[in-house]
């Protein structure tokens, strides 16, 4: 059903922008005409429940991007179908069910946007929405994404190396860590308005990396996937992707990147420190206290009967990051 509505809207977009704007404002129009009755109120309140979704619901508009495709990131793993990676998301700001973000985030506003890089830097930077796509050359990288819940996907991200922008900001020698923060906007994010929707998380969502992890060439800021800009449920307009760490490290819809001297707090670590550490490197030998991390189910195609259970690889199959952790006991620093 979602696939269908996606298609409908891309067709709509091709037709006429003005028409769609009017269409998106239809409830406002009806209200201004004095036609708001019990039916309209019902359909509004039912949105969060999901039982009575109207089929003509608005779908977020995504643009095509231009980018290069460096060979070393075009891997052999079967790519997860776009319809799956854009409808099965953990983004508690829009609800805790996997289908909630795709359902509740379609009206999310990404333009205008402002991303600030500050803290222990010589030159603080603020990027506007357009800067996100223009300041650096974009490239496509097909990365494995391993969720801490023991499932994984393979996703063609489009973005640029985090190191590029950090270098432009010129970190001071005291800077040791990089802290990230998601947008805090309860009006747009129902999970931030109510703890019943947002799973009891203390918002805004925050994440962090050690500076050398952030500077590693595999760490990217992504602005798109599958050739187009990101949909909101996947962290539009800009998100972090750190492929050798569990998915929750790859923070979405970032508004602030701050260089710090102290290790910054991270959301899941604050919620359950015995279950989620600061590092959160993918590691088949260190189990989550409640489940094994030795294997994962790779979500691609094939439905229920697909034999998709595979071994989880150390650092999610990116051994080039191992030197970052030489001499560290990774079962202690999980």
């Amino acid at each position, binding site marked *: 059903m979602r696939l269908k509505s996606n298609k409908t809207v891309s067709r709509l977009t091709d037709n006429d922008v003005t028409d769609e704007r009017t269409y998106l404002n239809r409830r406002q129009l009806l209200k201004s005409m004095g036609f708001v009755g019990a039916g309209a109120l019902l359909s509004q309140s039912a949105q969060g429940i999901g039982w009575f979704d109207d089929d003509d619901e608005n779908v977020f508009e995504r643009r095509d991007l231009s980018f290069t495709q460096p060979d070393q990131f075009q891997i052999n793993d079967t790519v997860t179908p776009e319809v799956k990676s854009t*409808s099965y998301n953990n983004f508690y700001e829009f609800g805790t069910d996997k289908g909630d973000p795709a359902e509740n985030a379609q009206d999310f506003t990404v333009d205008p946007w402002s991303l600030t890089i500050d803290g222990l830097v010589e030159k603080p930077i603020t990027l506007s929405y357009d800067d996100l796509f223009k300041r650096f050359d974009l490239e496509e990288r097909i990365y494995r994404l391993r969720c801490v819940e023991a499932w994984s996907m393979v996703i063609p991200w489009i973005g640029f190396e985090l190191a590029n922008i950090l270098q432009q900001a010129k970190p001071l020698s005291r800077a040791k860590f990089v802290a990230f923060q998601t947008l805090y906007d309860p009006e747009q994010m129902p999970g931030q308005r109510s703890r019943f929707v947002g799973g009891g998380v203390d918002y805004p969502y925050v994440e962090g990396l050690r500076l050398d992890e952030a500077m590693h060439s595999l760490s990217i800021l992504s602005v798109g996937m599958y050739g187009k800009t990101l949909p909101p449920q996947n962290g539009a307009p800009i998100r972090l992707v750190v492929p050798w760490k569990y998915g929750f490290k790859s923070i979405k819809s970032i508004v602030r990147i701050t260089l710090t001297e102290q290790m910054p707090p991270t959301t899941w670590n604050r919620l*359950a420190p015995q279950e989620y550490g600061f590092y959160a490197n993918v590691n088949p030998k260190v189990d989550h206290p*409640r489940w*094994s991390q*030795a*294997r994962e*189910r790779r979500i691609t195609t094939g439905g*229920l009967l697909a034999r998709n259970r595979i071994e989880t690889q150390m650092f999610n199959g990116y051994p080039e990051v191992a030197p970052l952790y030489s001499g560290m006991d990774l079962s202690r620093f999980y």
Partner: protein
Amino acid sequence: MQALSATPLRLSERRILILKWLLHGVSFSWVAYVFFTAVTDQVAGDPVDRLLHFTGMGALNLLLLSLAISPVAKRFRAANLIKLRRPTGLWAFSYALLHLATFVLFELQLEWALIGTEIIERPYITVGFSAFIILLLLAATSITAVRRRMGRRWQLLHNWVYVSAPLVVIHFYWSVKSDVVEPVVYGLLVLVLLYVRRERLRKIFRG
């Protein structure tokens, strides 16, 4: 519990039969539909996750429904409503069986070594598995002939349903990452269902 309704609510045999078939029809077609969409890859995200969630929640809902039947029957003095209790309990067991089967067949994909260690080492799975064993014993002894042969021991065994319900809720609470609201609400429902039969539970515990 006291009967609060002035006049008994008489449900005809036909009404009971209709309710029974409604229960069978809804319970069967709903789970069949969800399995069909999962097998044919029509589930939006991960079919295994969808099935685990659906069968787990279904089992819990049906178990609570089966526990609600006798208080409701007493309150509205609708004695023959009790006839719905066994089929509801059996459907709760069936959903629990499908839940376990989904976990073993599709989540762990028959990796036997792991199945053993997961059940023993992961507390929330141990708790869920214990609840399943209780439901299995209750379902296996639900046939009238077995019930007769067991005599007094049948009731002793079936009192364990009051243990299974809290276990299922603990299993649910323990399995979520941070969104505990729903499991807490279910926990309160179980407390209500146990509270309305507190006299009976007191007798059971006194022996």
